[in-house]
């Protein structure tokens, strides 16, 4: 069953604006990861946040994790046209030891210049 659900499904913004995507999940996790996928390509790992962490930064990316609400957000600041892609969250459920990540359906981000 789906573990992660991203919100919104689609987001359109102008260059220079910030983009915020949210991910909600159902069960306790060890970590949560965000991936990016350009159209017709494979996924690229962006950032991993562990269950005992609340916030992580990587360049223009900021990820927060609220385990009490079972939710995470990905913020892309000062967006660029090249940020246009689909963004997926993936969780590592604690109740499924040894199995692989579970991906959400993704948010499609469109950044126009």
């Amino acid at each position: 069953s789906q573990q992660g659900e991203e919100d919104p499904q689609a987001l359109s913004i102008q260059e220079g604006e910030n983009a915020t995507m949210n991910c909600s999940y159902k069960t306790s996790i060890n970590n949560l990861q965000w991936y990016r996928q350009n159209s017709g390509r494979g996924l690229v790992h962006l950032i991993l946040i562990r269950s005992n962490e609340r916030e992580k930064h990587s360049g223009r990316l900021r990820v927060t994790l609220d385990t009490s609400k079972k939710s995470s957000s990905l913020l892309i600041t000062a967006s660029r046209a090249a940020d246009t892609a689909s963004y997926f969250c993936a969780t590592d459920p604690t109740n499924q030891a040894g199995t692989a990540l579970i991906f959400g359906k993704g948010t499609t981000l469109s950044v126009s210049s």
Partner: protein
Amino acid sequence: DAMVIQNPRYQVTQFGKPVTLSCSQTLNHNVMYWYQQKSSQAPKLLFHYYDKDFNNEADTPDNFQSRRPNTSFCFLDIRSPGLGDAAMYLCATSRDSGTETQYFGPGTRLLVL
């Protein structure tokens, strides 16, 4: 430098004609995965290998098989492709446990005529 390589990038097959997709990695990772991704959907894990140990997802159809002859290579065999099997097939690797960062190949888009 390519780390996870998938061949071919595009594959056209006929209904019912067996097809094999290949994946190779230069990362020397223990774990290799095969995902199926249909348009605007999340990647769906088909199976994964931890070294030589094969792990099949419960809902993966019997039509899908996999081989991992050595650390570097992994193959996805579709014995009798149906129209519903048309999708992007993604190969990924991770260093050790199944929930670490995954490194994806560019994918193979399969078209079934």
